[in-house]
């Protein structure tokens, strides 16, 4: 192999462009080293190192947000750095920070190894950040599998709890199945694009740019069409769109609460990151993609909301509500094909969704008892009275998720609706509205449980009084996280300011 080739390839490996990912990876390694180096009693600082490190990386990324590599393709076409990609990197870093904070709270109650949780979270985060920028199926697959394998571990992390393990198993089987389907789809696309029998065949068929050009030249290939839908199926599993949503409530229920949050927020966002990339790659098959996504969106919104209506376990409830959010986001994705600002709308929606979800999951983490999987609406009785702070944060979070003004979630929905209207998706809009109305019922039911005085059976003498549901006091980092999520949800509802500018909405 001529050295020039190596040098040329190396020159294209713009490592500085993935400095955040590298740092995240190094941070994970640092944690592991610290675990070995530090004495047992000093190991409590490791989670703090993770959180502080993440915040540092976050700050650095914000500082270097408008770097010169944005808009470029690096690593021999494996990565493409775009504005959306930058946003998603920030998003995943923030999500990881939040999850780590919640992890500290949740793990305190479990006699589980602590450090591995953070290390795995960090690696998964790094993979997600790469996924958001991947421009090549190999990169996509590897990043995706890293995330998936990481989640297998995280979901079944509390191995003392059989429910957690069961959730892990279910996620494992479903995830592997979806990987298989995705992989088969990739194989078909690869074969079609590389075949010299086809028009404009390419020598680099896994590269998205090349694939896009190929698909434009062959807009009617059945093989490519099947490949596309199989890839979309794999992605639909990640975002939790019908009919690949069915695993969600079980896994969310069984997984430790911070992991559920991670799944709901980051994993979903990662799915949408791929979807956004792929939809533009599959541009030539627009009618197929739009039809598939539209049907998925309708089914997702209706099913998610319907199934959540009568749900009492809050983890399942939030999971199903997350399904419906995926439906709204799918509408945004469809709209983004024609309407440029819809991309910003999706980002805004994701951001608002993250804030709202952290508020809710944060409260859930504090309210949940020893059995993490058993979190019922009844556990929230009088929450607002006994823990006004948690109550207020929960109210804001749920309100934001429900899309009630003046909270950020409403602005997200509104922007998506605006985009959908501009794209002329009236039918989808109608479904979305029905979905929002349905969702009010269960979100409000939750608020009702936490805020409204409930009837209680009178306690007779001699009877044991009903034990108070276990609730933790809110520590400093978690308190900051919750307050930030709630306040930001409120603030973003009123004033989008820089974020709006950033996302191209202003």
């Amino acid at each position, binding site marked *: 192999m001529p050295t020039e080739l190596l040098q040329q390839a190396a020159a294209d490996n713009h490592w500085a462009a993935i400095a955040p990912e590298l740092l995240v990876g190094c941070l994970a390694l640092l944690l592991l080293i610290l675990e070995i180096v530090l004495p047992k009693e000093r190991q409590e600082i490791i989670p703090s190192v993770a959180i502080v490190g993440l915040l540092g990386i976050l700050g650095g990324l914000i500082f270097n947000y408008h770097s010169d590599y944005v808009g470029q393709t690096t690593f021999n076409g494996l990565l493409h750095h775009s504005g959306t990609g930058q946003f998603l990197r920030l998003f995943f870093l923030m999500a990881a920070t939040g999850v780590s904070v919640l992890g500290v709270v949740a793990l305190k109650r479990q006699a589980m190894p602590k450090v591995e949780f953070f290390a795995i979270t960090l690696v998964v985060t790094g993979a997600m950040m790469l996924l958001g920028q991947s421009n090549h199926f190999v990169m996509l697959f590897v990043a995706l599998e890293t995330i998936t394998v990481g989640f297998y571990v995280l979901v079944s992390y509390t191995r003392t709890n059989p429910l957690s393990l069961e959730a892990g*198993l*279910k996620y494992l*089987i*479903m995830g592997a*199945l*979806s990987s298989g*389907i995705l992989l088969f789809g990739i194989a078909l696309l690869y074969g079609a694009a590389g075949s010299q029998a086809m028009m404009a065949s390419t020598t680099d068929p896994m590269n998205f740019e090349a694939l896009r050009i190929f698909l434009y030249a062959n807009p009617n290939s*059945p093989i490519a*069409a*099947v490949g*596309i*839908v*199989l890839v*979309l*199926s794999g992605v*639909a*599993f990640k975002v939790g769109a*019908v*009919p*690949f949503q*069915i*695993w969600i*409530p*079980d896994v969310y229920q069984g997984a430790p609460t911070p992991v559920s949050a991670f799944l709901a927020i980051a994993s979903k966002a990662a799915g949408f990151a791929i979807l956004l990339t792929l939809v533009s790659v599959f541009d030539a098959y627009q009618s*197929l993609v739009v*039809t*598939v996504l539209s049907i998925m969106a309708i089914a997702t919104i209706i*099913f998610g909301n*319907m*199934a*959540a*209506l*009568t*749900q009492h376990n809050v983890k*399942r409830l939030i999971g199903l509500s997350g399904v419906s959010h995926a439906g709204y986001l799918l509408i945004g994705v469809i709209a983004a094909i024609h309407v440029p600002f819809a991309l910003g709308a999706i980002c805004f929606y994701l951001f608002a969704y993250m804030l709202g979800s952290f508020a809710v999951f944060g409260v859930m983490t504090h309210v949940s008892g020893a059995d993490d999987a058993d979190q019922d609406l009844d556990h929230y009785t009088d929450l607002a009275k006994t823990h006004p702070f948690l109550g207020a944060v929960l109210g804001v979070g749920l309100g934001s998720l429900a899309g009630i003004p003046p909270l950020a979630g409403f602005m997200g929905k509104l922007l998506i609706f605006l985009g959908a209207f501009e794209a002329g998706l009236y039918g989808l809009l109608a479904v979305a509205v029905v979905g929002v109305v*349905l969702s009010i019922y269960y979100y409000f039911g939750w608020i009702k449980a936490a805020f409204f005085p409930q009837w209680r059976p009178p306690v007779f003498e001699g009877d044991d009084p009903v034990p108070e549901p276990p609730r933790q006091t809110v520590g400093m980092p978690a308190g900051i996280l919750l307050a930030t999520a709630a306040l930001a949800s409120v603030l973003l509802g009123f004033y989008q300011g820089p974020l709006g500018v950033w996302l191209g909405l202003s």
Partner: protein
Amino acid sequence: MDSTQLALITLLVPLVSATVIALFLRRAGAVASYLSTVAAAVVAVTAVMLAYGGHRFDVSAEWFTFGEFTLSLGFKFDDLAALMLTIVGVVGFCVHLFSLGYMHDDQDKARFFGGLSVFMFSMIGIVLADNLFMMFIFWELVGFSSYLLINHYCLKQSAADAAKKAFIVNRVGDFGFLIGILMCYWHYGTVDLNALPDVIAGGAMMSIAIPLLLFCGAMGKSAQMPLHIWLPDAMEGPTPVSALIHAATMVAAGIYMLCRIEVLMVADALNVIMWVGTITAVYAALCAIVQSDIKKVLAYSTLSQLGYMVAAFGLGSLVVEHDGSEVLIAAGVGAAMFHLTTHAFFKALLFLGSGSVIHGCHHEQNIFKMGGLLKKMPLTAITMLIGVLAISGLPFLSGFYSKDSILHLAQEKNAIVFGLLVFTAVVTSFYMVRMWRITFMGETQSDAAEKAHEGGLSMTLPLVLLAVLSIFGGYTHGPLGFLYGHSFDGVWSQIPHASGAGVFIMSIAILVVGAGLAFALYKPGPSDGLATKMPAAFIGLTALKESFDKGYNYYVAKVQDRFAMLMNFLEQILLAGLIIRGLAGIVGLFGLGARALHVGSLHAYVYWFLLGAVLLWGFAGGLF
């Protein structure tokens, strides 16, 4: 100070009085009563000044505008208004004065006098109104003050019910009135009383609906059949209120309003009005016979007399010979207003007299428990006798002239109506004499009557004043016409006058027959003479009276309330229940179904994947 400002003062002084009482004098009843009385005195004085000052004027001010709709308020002060204003002022003052004595011991005096002031304000508003909207506004307001005053003894269920009934029945009338006004507005383009004659003279299409709908308002306020049911009940209010509102002024407002809109009348409408009036007159007179409550007798009498006036108005205009030439006069207006005037005096007198009796007998109202009061309360007895004779049409008293002008008009226009009105007149003298005789003659029938005594000066003075007016009120011109001067010639000139001795004889005959029958059938005593002597007639008349009340109660309890309950039931069951909850239930069922799909088995979940994969694959592969 010009006349407009004076009129404004007349209108606003009672309002100021009412406001001050409501805000500051709630607990200072005595001060409130004096303030209100002073206000009434000011009104009386300014009213007389305005009426006799000879100045007549129209002013109007825009009150607000929306697009092309402008509502203005203004005064139309002509002879008709002047006459009415004088009556309101004078009678109002008398009643205020009387109330000072009558209500002396009442705890809620302030509320009472405040109500009276509100009433004066509203009534003057009606009188001065220059357009129908404004008239409607004050029309409603008098209804409100009437409600307030009937409700004075509000802890009594009957008083509360009566007040409510009065207001609601009036609102039924106003329902028609308002529609009439709206029709008038869109039909003629204006509701201005000054502009309407011009529009009509300009050849505007006449409509029968408008006058009849407007008459609905009069039916409510002047208690014409079938909306008369509230008036007898309204006697639950304090007696001065009955005198002022439910005899002399407010109930007459309907007549006044009809006279105001005479220009809108068409023949068919007048016919209807005439018959309504006639029937009311006869019916109420018959009902009055069997009443034992002194105020109820007077109430039915009022109804009957109002029927008289309405009938008179309905009889319409008449061609008379005047100075050798034939002229058309609005005889209905003249006769009705004339009777309204005299009736205001003698009916106020009668009510105040009965108030004096009731006050004297410590709020005993049953005439069969009185008796022999002539000796105990001579002044009351005599002034009341004047009233009784005036209403019965004794020649040279005021009622004689006004009633005769109506009878004359009826004679000219419609024989049947004439017959009915004559019959009513006979019955009138019959029950009035009955009432007076049982109350004042014979032996006292109860402790209360035993201890009866004359009220103070504030109570007797109005009686005397009104008695004088009852005597002289009938002289519209000529040597004894000093009471009116020439100030109201615009109205008086429309009165039809009968000539010859026929009227005299007829009048005396009526009086003699009626009074004679009364003397024959009744003796002062504890029981109703008619009931013992002619039980069939008594029962028949009682049934006649009660039929309407029963009908009304039946309607309220069995029709209206049940219908409301039914609608409520339908809403709760059908709309809120079946449709809304049903819909929610169906959605919930779907929700349960969707939730039930999460069976927990991995296999089931894998099938979802299969389904999705096959569907998408098939779709992309063009299989369907």
